[in-house]
């Protein structure tokens, strides 16, 4: 592998870390760890394998067909099904973007002490300016690299001296203790939803087109999706272990975005706190940009508009207006004063409901020789893709009933 490719993998890894661990993962992983300790670590493994399988398919489709997935969704599934997918995706994108913006404002508040309400519009302006001014690769680099501050949770996990035997046991599904079966299942669904959020695959596939991937990049696509998401999963493990080691014994049930940072602070002092807050800030900030872009990409690709960060904003005016509109609507949603953590829980659960609409077209297109030629799914990709699609169907059906029955995981 050439130096250029090594660098490209590294950049992919950075962006995957920044994109994978967003506010949904922060909330669900720490809450799950605080209630069930390490018993739900196996769910993260399943979620990571699932997002690798489908991201690899999306990257391959983009590299071979030179078109992003949403472009092909309408062509392959027809206007009606495509429109349903578009509407569901845009609702989830908007809710997720709003939650991430709230998260950015909270991080700034915890760092600066300025009022939250003032910081919300400032956060949106800052993110919109970054999105407008920075080239695509620099967005990946800035938010990916600085999101690496989250690695402080891995160090904190070691410093908190968890029972490593119990941690290892958590990777094997089995009986549970600490909460009711319904709450346990709610977190299984939430963790899977947080790991396989639809915007991740839309952004990944459009990013592959923006980065001008071709057949030469197929290997790079595999390596990037595997290593990147495995590292993202590693951060999720760290968050859950930290919560299981510190919050569970004390009876702390995290309700605020500032609570995970408390664990880094307790284990590593002020440096740990600052690294955690900066890491969270850039991880959720990067995710806010990804969701707004994913919203713009989906609209532009569905309606056949000119799109892409490489285009001058005036040349791709409808695409530019779309992602700006997502930011503006998300701003209004957060300004209502609704708690971003609660909004995150809703957005993750509703994204679970929309998952089949996202993943079925990807599976179909990746198997279509008319688009993919000899690069259609192999046996392994089809077996895994099929199994994951069945799993997605099941969790999509049970997600909302579980949320209502458990009062959002409260029991």
């Amino acid at each position: 592998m050439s130096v250029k490719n090594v660098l490209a993998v590294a950049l992919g890894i950075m962006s995957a870390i920044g994109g994978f661990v967003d506010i949904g993962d922060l909330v669900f992983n720490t809450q799950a760890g605080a209630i069930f300790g390490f018993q739900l670590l196996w769910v993260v493994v399943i979620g990571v394998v699932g997002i690798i399988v489908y991201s690899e398919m999306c990257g391959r489709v983009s590299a071979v067909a030179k078109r992003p997935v949403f472009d092909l969704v309408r062509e392959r599934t027809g206007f009606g099904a495509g429109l349903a997918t578009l509407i569901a995706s845009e609702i989830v994108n908007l809710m997720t973007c709003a939650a991430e913006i709230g998260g950015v404002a909270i991080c700034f508040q915890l760092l600066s002490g300025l009022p939250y309400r003032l910081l919300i519009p400032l956060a949106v302006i800052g993110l919109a300016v970054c999105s407008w001014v920075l080239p695509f690769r620099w967005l990946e680099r800035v938010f990916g690299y600085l999101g690496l501050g989250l690695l402080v949770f891995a160090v904190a996990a070691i410093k908190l001296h968890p029972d490593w035997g119990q941690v290892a046991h958590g990777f094997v599904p089995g009986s549970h203790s600490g909460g009711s079966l319904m709450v346990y299942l709610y977190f299984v669904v939430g963790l899977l939803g947080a790991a396989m959020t639809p915007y991740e695959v839309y952004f990944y596939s459009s990013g592959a087109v923006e980065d001008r991937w071709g057949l030469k990049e197929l290997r790079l696509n595999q390596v990037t999706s595997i290593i990147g998401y495995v590292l993202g999963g590693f951060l999720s493990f760290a968050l859950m272990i930290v919560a299981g080691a510190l919050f569970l014994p004390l009876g702390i049930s995290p309700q605020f975005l500032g609570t995970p940072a408390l664990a880094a602070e307790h284990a590593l002092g002020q440096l740990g706190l600052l690294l955690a807050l900066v890491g969270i800030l850039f991880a959720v900030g990067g995710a806010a940009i990804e969701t707004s872009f994913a919203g713009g990409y989906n609209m532009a690709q569905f309606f056949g508009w000119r799109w892409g960060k490489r285009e001058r904003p005036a040349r791709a005016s409808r695409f530019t207006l779309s992602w700006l509109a997502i930011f503006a609507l998300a701003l209004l949603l957060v300004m209502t004063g609704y708690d971003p953590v609660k909004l995150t829980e809703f957005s993750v659960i509703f994204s679970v409901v929309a998952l089949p609409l996202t993943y079925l077209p990807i599976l179909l297109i990746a198997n279509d020789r008319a688009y993919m030629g000899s690069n259609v799914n192999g046996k392994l990709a089809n077996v895994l893709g099929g199994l994951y699609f069945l799993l997605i169907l099941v969790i999509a059906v049970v997600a909302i009933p579980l949320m209502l029955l458990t009062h959002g995981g409260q029991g």
Partner: protein
Amino acid sequence: MRGFRKESRLLVLGLIVGLVGAGCGSGGKLGVKALSQESKSLRSLAAEGALLAQDAVSGKTTRVYTREHSSDLYKAASQAEASLKTAETEPELEPKLRQLAVLAAQVSADLNRLGSASKEEERAVGRELQAAAKESKKIGEGLK
């Protein structure tokens, strides 16, 4: 076929109403489960405040983070205090409800002090919040 469709719709409607009903709870008086949930939530707020105070005493945290995070915890504790003050329950659960309401008021006051406390005060607040967390756990266990 048409009758079957009508029955299916009624079944789905019934299921939704049932789930929403279960989600919203029974309303009115607090039962054992709701009180137990309140005690858990109060224990969590008190324990988190105690941890924050302990870290503030040992210089592990920043002033801004202590002030802002304790303010978030205080708001949640005040909400719990307000809802417990006006809540009603069965006569046999009345003492537990009163205990929780008193404890919520104390936790709320402690968290309010924490944001602008001196080192000595932080130590005292930390101890009080730790004791409140233990007390809340005891009340919750008494409800089982």
